[in-house]
């Protein structure tokens, strides 16, 4: 089930082992930082197989995919987006935010895939998927986790323009 393009965090492995030993109630978490292009449908399909493998049938599944915008903040064409992170802390924060959101909403399983490195316009930056027993918790958990990781996971975006200039973004696009 492991993805060639995504680096699995050690923290995620440990938490998943704990979750498995804690029985049905602990949410299944899968968190990856990806240095190579993130193909959302492939990842979602893999995740679906993982859930089936664990005997999880999720009546409700909510997903979000964020992609690189074609234009920089100043309206000029973007050539690429650079995503810096804090190795170690970023994985730990994603893990802890995903776990907290899953527990808060009683979700069955949560998938987070987040790119790092250099991305072209249109490429997927982030994929969040939440499986739950009902649509309300699935949607709310997915939405809250997306906000949480945008504000509380250490990532920094830098926009590179055609003339070779670049700017670090000072925050997120408005909701």
């Amino acid at each position, binding site marked *: 089930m492991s993805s060639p393009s995504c680096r699995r965090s050690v923290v995620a492995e440990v938490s998943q082992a704990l979750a498995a030993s804690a029985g049905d109630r602990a949410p299944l978490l899968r968190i990856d930082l990806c240095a190579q292009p993130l193909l959302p449908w492939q990842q979602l399909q893999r995740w679906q197989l993982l859930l089936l493998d664990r005997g999880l049938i999720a009546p409700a599944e909510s997903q979000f995919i*964020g992609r690189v915008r074609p234009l920089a903040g100043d309206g000029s064409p973007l050539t690429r987006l650079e*995503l*810096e*992170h*804090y190795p*170690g*802390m970023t994985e*730990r924060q994603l893990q802890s935010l995903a776990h907290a959101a899953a527990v808060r909403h009683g979700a069955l399983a949560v998938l987070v895939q*987040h790119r790092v490195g250099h991305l072209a316009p249109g490429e997927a*930056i*982030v994929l969040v998927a939440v499986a739950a027993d009902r649509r309300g918790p699935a949607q709310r958990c997915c939405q809250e986790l*997306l906000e949480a*990781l*945008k*504000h*509380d*996971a*250490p*990532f*920094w*975006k*830098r926009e590179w323009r055609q003339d070779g200039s670049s700017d*670090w*973004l*000072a*925050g*997120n696009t408005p909701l």
Partner: protein
Amino acid sequence: MAVDPAPLGPHLRLRLFASLREAAGWGERHWPLAAAEAPTPRQLWQALALPGELLTIRVAINQQFASLDTPLQAGDELAFLPPISGG
């Protein structure tokens, strides 16, 4: 940006990221500590004369968000984080 070698005695590991790293001109360095010294991130920010407004900065101690006024201990990793833009 080369990392300075870790000193032999008690010290902190300091880290900067993104715009702050570029403005400061370094990403990682070590800060030796005297025996009874327990500086806070706020004190170190001033001692390092880092560029920008501390108001916009969050700090992480040992890769967890922490208060600007937490006393630091030898061996701690302190990071100054400019505004986050993930997702």
